[in-house]
């Protein structure tokens, strides 16, 4: 009975990770370890916290109030547009754009740049994981 309980309890944890490919899963695990080092009460990333980070406006690097959705649009399954250059941005949602969240190198690059552009600072490991869970759920 106890074994069964542990089995069912662990399903959500596995499920939340399983849609990432292997290198991304390893990156998520690494982020979790870093998040735990900063906050010993840390349990798991959370897509709702991620959504808040993604949609809340901040005074960005250019001195203009922006959020991630300013360029990526609120519907991640649709094209976005860079509001400064007018360049079209392919959908962020991995369900319609298979390339998204598939390369750790790409993911690290965009998280680094875009947190700086919107928040004028790097994201914490927890914030990065939250945002990745949010995007992955779309």
């Amino acid at each position: 009975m106890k074994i069964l309980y542990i089995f069912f309890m662990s399903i959500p944890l596995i499920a939340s990770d399983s849609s990432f490919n292997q290198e991304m899963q390893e990156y998520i695990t690494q982020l979790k370890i870093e998040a735990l080092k900063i906050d010993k009460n840390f349990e798991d990333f959370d897509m709702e916290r991620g959504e808040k980070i993604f949609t809340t406006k901040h005074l960005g690097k250019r001195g203009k109030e922006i959020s991630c959705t300013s360029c990526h649009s609120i519907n991640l399954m649709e094209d976005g547009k860079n509001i400064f250059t007018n360049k079209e941005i392919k959908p962020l949602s991995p369900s319609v754009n298979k390339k998204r969240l598939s390369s750790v190198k790409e993911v690290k690059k965009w998280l680094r740049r875009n947190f700086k552009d919107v928040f004028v600072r790097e994201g914490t490991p927890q914030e990065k994981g939250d945002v990745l869970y949010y995007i992955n759920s779309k």
Partner: protein
Amino acid sequence: MKNILLVTCFIVTNIFANNYLFGASIGVKPVDNPLYLKECGSCHFAFQAGLLPSRSWTKMMKNLENHFGSDASLELEDQKYIEEYLTRYSADKSMEYKRSRKIMNLIKNNETPLRITKTLYFMKKHDQIPTKMIQQKEVLSLSNCMACHTTASKGIYSERAIKIPNYGKWDD
């Protein structure tokens, strides 16, 4: 003698072929580097290397963290590779192309422009355009080449390939 003639013929044909495609003049060498196209072209039009001198690209690539107000930082390896590409085909090294040559001719030796739109040749070519044509949402700014120059990605900036959104052809 015959050989020299042949080689000269070959070179001339090559330059001709490089500069003309389907009758339109290729003003600047088209981008032919996949990494440059991917990395720089994901946020803005992939401006051809031949639109700025080598020293400009070097200076720009050293400060990608503050790239015209955005963080465009790259892994060092990719940054070096792209800088090498841009400086190898920069305007001062592509003088066989008309636009590169004209841009260079109007840049002073002590100048290191970072914005293509602030080079004298560019400004002269765009100073007659009414602000309302530029500031409309389909264009946004003069750095959005493709909005009006329909063949910009081929390195062709000729007047007959211009189509300004909501206004149409442009006559000087």
